């Protein structure tokens, strides 16, 4: 064991050498700018993160953050609909946007000299979006198509959505990011206008730039484009703390499907809410013991060993804004039932509570975390994502740098302790996808021109 520890320490120092310097600034209007240098290639990624997402929403307007994200491409007075994307494209850029529980983010990836193009356009739409009824009527249809594609026609996604809404009663963690269909159908342009005015301001945003750039030059550029923007009075959302769960919840989702599916989730704290700040790191290790790779317990014992499952997973995210879930999911193998799979997963939980994890298992998790921290440096986009995600959740980006050391400090006893404290039946919600017959089949083929198939 000693030699492995020595290697980890050595790699820790390699990590420090390999990672670029990070510079943090704040403009007078409250915009936070974080620049990370990575000089390997003449490229830059720029991301604007707004602190608003599904967890800021309430019943009746679910999905509004994501719809607004779509509308952000529909023009300002200076750059009408379509211009943003056209200009970025002509400059060799690729762009996109994404919405999560705790954030709405916009990004461009560019050759480094084009960064001013991105700043000019992003600054413009931060305060000057021109929401128009005609564009909205078309785009809301696109979002509904997106919901059909992602959720309505995917039995596992449908199950997850209903699971999430059952695991929480009061907390906005229950809200699906894409929004309920009926809320999308009843969304108004005026709703979007007030949502935009409420959250889109420099003092509610974080600008993250990673790439082959000079931090001071980026600061000057940011001051030039974003500096003149007026801040807004931001009223944070109500806390909506979830009442204590008092017993296991179970739901069934019946939908046309071929294969059953199981999700289990235990209420669990995140870094922001944990009583002890080592607990989320112990939960991270726990997730990795179960599902950190092919050698971890769920694949080894349920997929390859007992062959109860064709797939089984576990997951946990410590960087969310609100209390989250420690998740399990899986699909039973041929002759096995969802009930058998659930019992097998519960047995895994029981074992984690009864016995500390083995030293070599713990060591593997730590080796993986150290190596992954190096591998992550190969992607500028990922590095920017991590900074943005933390900041959007109201956490300090420096926590990402602490991650390796904090995970390395977790003991087998701590893993057992969080398993005993949080993976308990009273905090459990279970959702089962019960397949209905699919009735698929080929309709009469229409063959214009009397063609035949080759």
């Amino acid at each position: 064991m000693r030699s492995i520890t020595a290697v980890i320490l050595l790699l820790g120092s390699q990590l420090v050498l390999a990672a670029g310097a990070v510079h943090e600034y704040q403009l007078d209007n409250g915009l936070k700018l974080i620049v990370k240098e990575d000089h390997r290639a003449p490229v830059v990624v720029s991301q604007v993160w707004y602190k608003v997402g599904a967890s800021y929403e309430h019943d009746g307007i679910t999905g509004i953050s994501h719809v607004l994200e779509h509308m952000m491409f529909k023009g300002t007075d200076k750059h009408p609909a379509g211009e943003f994307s056209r200009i970025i494209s002509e400059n060799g850029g690729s762009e996109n946007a994404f919405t999560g529980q705790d954030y709405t983010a916009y990004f461009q990836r560019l050759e480094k000299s084009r960064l001013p193009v991105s700043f000019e356009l992003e600054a413009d739409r931060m305060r000057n979006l021109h929401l128009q009824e005609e564009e909205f009527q078309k785009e809301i249809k696109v979002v509904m198509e997106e919901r059909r594609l992602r959720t309505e026609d995917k039995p596992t996604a449908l199950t997850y959505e209903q699971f999430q809404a059952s695991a929480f009663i009061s907390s906005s963690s229950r809200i699906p990011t894409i929004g309920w269909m009926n809320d999308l159908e009843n969304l108004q342009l005026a709703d979007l206008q007030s949502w935009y005015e409420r959250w889109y301001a420099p003092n509610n945003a974080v600008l993250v730039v990673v790439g082959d750039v000079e931090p001071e030059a980026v600061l000057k550029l940011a001051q030039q484009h974003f500096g003149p923007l007026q801040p807004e009075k931001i009223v944070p959302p109500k806390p909506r703390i979830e009442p204590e769960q008092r017993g296991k919840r179970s739901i069934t989702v019946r939908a046309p499907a071929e294969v059953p599916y199981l999700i289990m989730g235990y209420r669990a704290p995140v870094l922001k809410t944990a009583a002890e700040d080592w607990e989320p790191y112990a939960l991270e290790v726990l997730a990795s013991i179960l599902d950190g790779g092919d050698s971890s317990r769920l694949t080894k014992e349920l997929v390859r060993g007992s062959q109860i499952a064709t797939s089984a997973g576990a997951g946990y995210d410590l960087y969310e804004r609100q209390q989250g879930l420690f998740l399990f999911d899986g699909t039973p193998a041929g002759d096995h039932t969802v009930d058998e799979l659930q019992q097998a997963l519960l047995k895994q939980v029981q074992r984690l509570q009864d016995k500390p994890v083995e030293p070599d298992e713990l060591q593997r998790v730590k080796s993986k975390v150290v190596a992954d921290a190096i591998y992550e440096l190969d992607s500028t986009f990922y590095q920017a994502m991590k900074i943005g995600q933390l900041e959007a959740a109201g956490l300090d980006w420096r926590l990402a740098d602490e991650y390796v050391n904090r995970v390395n400090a977790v003991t087998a006893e701590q893993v057992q302790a969080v398993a005993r404290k949080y993976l308990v039946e009273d905090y459990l919600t279970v959702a089962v996808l019960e397949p209905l017959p699919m009735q698929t089949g080929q309709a009469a083929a229409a063959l214009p021109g009397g063609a035949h198939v080759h």
Partner: protein
Amino acid sequence: MFTENSTVILRFCQLLLISLLPVTAAQAIPAIQHWVTDNGARVYFVPAPELPMVDINITFAAGSARDAGHPGLASLTSTLLDKGAAGLSADEIAVRAESLGAQLSTGSARDMAWLSLRSLSDSAHLQPGIELLRDVAGSPDFRQADFERERDRMLVALRHSEQSPATVAEYTFFKTIYGVHPYGSRPEGTEASLKALSLKQVREFYRQYYVAANAVIGIVGDIDRSAAEALAERLTGKLQAGERAAPIPPVEPLHDSVEQRIFHPSSQTHVQMGAPGMRRGDPDYFPLYVGNHVLGGGGLVSRLNEAVREQRGLSYSVNSYFTPMEQDGPYLFSLQTRNDQVDEALAVMRETLQGYLESGPTQDELTASVNNITGGFPLLIENNSKILGYIVMIGFYGLPLDYLETFNDKVSAVTRQQIMDAYRRRVHPAEIATIIVGGEPKPAAE
């Protein structure tokens, strides 16, 4: 990995980058070093000393186009490589890799099957990682119990895929445009074909195709040339020299148009429309690639996206692309829309194609696409994993080593006339397959 935690949603579908893009003059192009191992494996190497890590990929011409009437054989063979090798069980292989913090994986597609390893570059981590990869690639055990378990998992995955109208449309599309050509069968196999597979077939498939003469090795990372040479020799040390796989037979073009509607209990209908397109190294590659960028490949600013999504709100994701393969891979137009809108969406898609065939891109459209492709080139070779993807592709398809260096010029040289000419010769609306998978039209609840 938790599969359905879909809390993050992108505005646009992330599409696989199908084609190679070009170079700006200022960009330092990685010099690709190439040599052949003692037993005949072709090696492509780019040193990247910035990060203490190494990426290795071994690709064999051992994809499902070699299934020879046994769909699923290539895929199952690939899956079994790391499930038991040199006396190590699947558990032991996984423990060894993960103790090193290494990422070991296998995969397959129609043209190829591959193994990859991402490792830290210090020898205490890299050397044992290479030994493991050498065993997995060079002496898999193919035990009966592993064979049966993995085949059962493939059978469940197959049933799972029937839930997806997109997947049904895709495999039907390939079957329709390729017929009995090896590209026409499903890489995942069918229920009947998987049940009929034997371990003996897997062993024979492995023996024939997982040989040095049939292998391309890509290495990118923090090692020097002599270490890379030693690595490649070590890695291939257990492979038989063997012979290169015979070329995949040429593809017959479609001679008529075909339309097929398949019922699926979904709220959307998925449309896939196209025909055999072009191969890697095709003389029409550049006009077709740049031409498609204007038509449906340029993401949010393409003609198709403008007509179907931006102007009419009919689809979340609509695009077109060519997938160049060893032989003519498909060109494909796809969209998905609410069931009752499918005829309208399909008509718009067909009109857009027809208009493009008649008059091609405008000069402004062409300039904009060329600017996007050439201006974005530095992003495509910005990191180790992207460079690895390119050198393996160049090696596998036998493209010239200066491919990246000359790409920019070739893209910039494409003219409107070349695009129109290539499209008229290669894309024929009267010889096209249209696959439509979805549910009954139902009035929207509005």
